[in-house]
């Protein structure tokens, strides 16, 4: 600990104030803009003083835009993303830690590689696959020459097509393929006593019973942490929902917010309404953080380790 001294106190306070202004400033501006009318903004530019139009703006968002249904989409995407990620990571970490698998090390390395190759980098290939989830299979058939063989026999090569673009499944699936959760669970499982699995076997519990009766209750907080983290990241996803869904009714709220800015040149966007929308859209993750802050912190600590 640094010694208590007046000069240090003053410096620390100053630094903190700068930090707070830096972080809270934009938030304040969002709120104050959201509470002014469009006309006020047109006349005065940036709204530094809060006004009384917040609820009017919000009701405008709810009644005149697609934000409500898009928030429902966001909810579905974030929730299923969190649920599927938890289930998939939990099971894959279970397999890697508790069973003697031949290539466990390599499998784990491949899973970890997904952390280093985020969706933002793979967005074009992911789009190609999503537009036809059979395209990898088609490519393999073409590449191996099997297709020309099939064409010789049946007259025409195999070409399968199924697009998941503009579906909720298509929005969620690419987000689920992420190694952080597996890594988190693996680290947690390794801290548990090794003999637990053996003890459960001696007690007559098979792998599934061990998973349900012992591993899952023990991992409760880890599951909750991962759920909160992936829910938040699913809610705030921008790039993939922007690419993966093209109709307004299938887009997520964050994408919908960006779309509120009119495309036409010269027109000043209705910033008070957009900001009110941003406040609305932020309410869900905000509530989530407020309620489950404990797990969020634990999750961040776990994934740091």
């Amino acid at each position, binding site marked *: 600990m640094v010694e208590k001294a007046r000069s240090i106190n003053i410096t620390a306070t100053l630094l903190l104030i700068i930090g707070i202004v830096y972080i809270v400033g934009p938030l304040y501006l969002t709120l104050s803009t959201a509470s002014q009318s469009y006309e006020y903004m047109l006349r005065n530019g940036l709204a530094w003083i809060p006004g009384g139009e917040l609820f009017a703006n919000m009701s405008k968002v709810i009644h005149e835009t697609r934000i409500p249904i898009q928030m429902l989409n966001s909810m579905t995407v974030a929730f299923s993303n969190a649920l599927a990620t938890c289930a998939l990571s939990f099971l894959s970490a279970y397999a890697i830690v508790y069973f003697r698998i031949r290539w466990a090390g390599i499998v784990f390395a491949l899973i970890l590689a997904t952390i280093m190759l985020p969706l933002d980098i793979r967005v074009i290939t992911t789009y190609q696959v999503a537009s036809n989830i059979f395209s990898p299979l088609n490519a393999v058939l073409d590449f191996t020459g099997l297709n020309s063989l099939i064409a010789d026999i049946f007259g025409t090569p195999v070409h399968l097509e199924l697009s998941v673009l503009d579906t909720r499944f298509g929005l969620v699936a690419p987000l689920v393929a992420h190694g952080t959760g597996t890594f988190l669970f693996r680290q947690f499982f390794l801290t548990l*006593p090794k003999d637990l699995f053996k003890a459960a076997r*001696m007690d*007559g519990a098979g792998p599934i019973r061990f998973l349900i009766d012992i591993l899952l209750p023990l991992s409760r907080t880890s599951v909750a942490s991962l759920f909160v983290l992936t829910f938040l990241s699913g809610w705030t996803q921008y790039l993939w929902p922007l690419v993966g869904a093209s109709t307004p009714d299938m887009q997520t709220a964050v994408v919908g917010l960006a779309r509120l800015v009119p495309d036409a040149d010269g027109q000043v966007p209705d910033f008070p309404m957009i900001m009110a929308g941003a406040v609305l859209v932020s309410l869900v993750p905000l509530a989530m953080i407020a309620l489950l802050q404990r797990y969020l912190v634990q999750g961040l600590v776990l994934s740091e380790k």
Partner: protein
Amino acid sequence: MVAIGTTIRDASADIELIGVTKTYDAKNVVIPPLSVALRPGEFTVILGPSGCGKSTLLQMIAGLERVSGGKILICDREVQDLEPKHRGCAMVFQNYALYPHMTVAENMAYSLKVAGIPKAERNERVAGVAKMLGLSDLLARKPAQLSGGQRQRVAIGRAIIREPGVLLFDEPLSNLDAQLRHDMRVELADLHRRIGATSVFVTHDQVEAMTLADRILILNKGRVEQFDTPKAIYHHPASVFVAKFIGAPPMNILQVTGDGSVLRLPDGQAVANYSGKGSFQLGIRPEDISVNAGGSIKARIRYREDLGSHEILETEIGCQQLRIATPFGVEIDTTSVLSLTFPRGRLHLFDGETGRAIPEAFGTAATTQSMKEYQ
């Protein structure tokens, strides 16, 4: 208590291992073919240095490790390919391996729950076992709220609640402090007498082995060095390995050569009459050596350790180390050279090459009846 149908219901079971082997690959042989028979109700301790394969052997009996070859028979039933739950075994682990999220009662009842025993009966049996182990007041606690000894007791309770025919212990006392270890040892011996299950106990602690075992199985690199009662192992070790492993301080082993009539140390001193020729290893326990003025064997004192009840003298005899434990209350004049006598009946002779004991080398019965029976 009420018997359940899912396990072998005898109070105790006999275990027979026939040519059991464990190999990980061609070069890595943990246990070469091994055959032993454990009698029903017997308390067998598997003793050996770390890495000798004793835990592997135990886990193969339990069904947690697959055998690479051979058969395991429990109650004359081949079990080597069965799941642990079908073998009628229960196990106590070194680090207890209690389920941290369950209470003491839930921990003990878990195997019954898995077996589908109704709740009323589960509670009844938990109460019975808890009473036997003095855990009745702790049933609602979680393992984290218990002391080491209490956790160990819960682990034992969890094992015996199913009334298994075979109880397996994997170094269960090594995580306890010295005093608690002693208490638990006494408790375990008492428990074994009351339950009567065939017990197999793995340890590297010779005191545990000597005090608990009906018979001790000494393993060295996966091979059985000796399988006999603690007394027989102490008094008639079958090999130099056993002789050095049992006893504190361990038996002295001296390199000697036989010229056809006497055994001589490298410096020429005669230590015993023996008709064999060639090189031998002569064993004598520190407490069996008598120090007296009339002794013909001379040794030089290097230093002494006073333990209160007796002294350990570190001496040198023909460039070889020799430890002597003096009897209680005997003061020894430690000038420089001691005169010693090796009582003929207390000498052990081992082959110079193989290290195996040469029975009846000095006319005494160096091999007991039971040793012949089980080798």
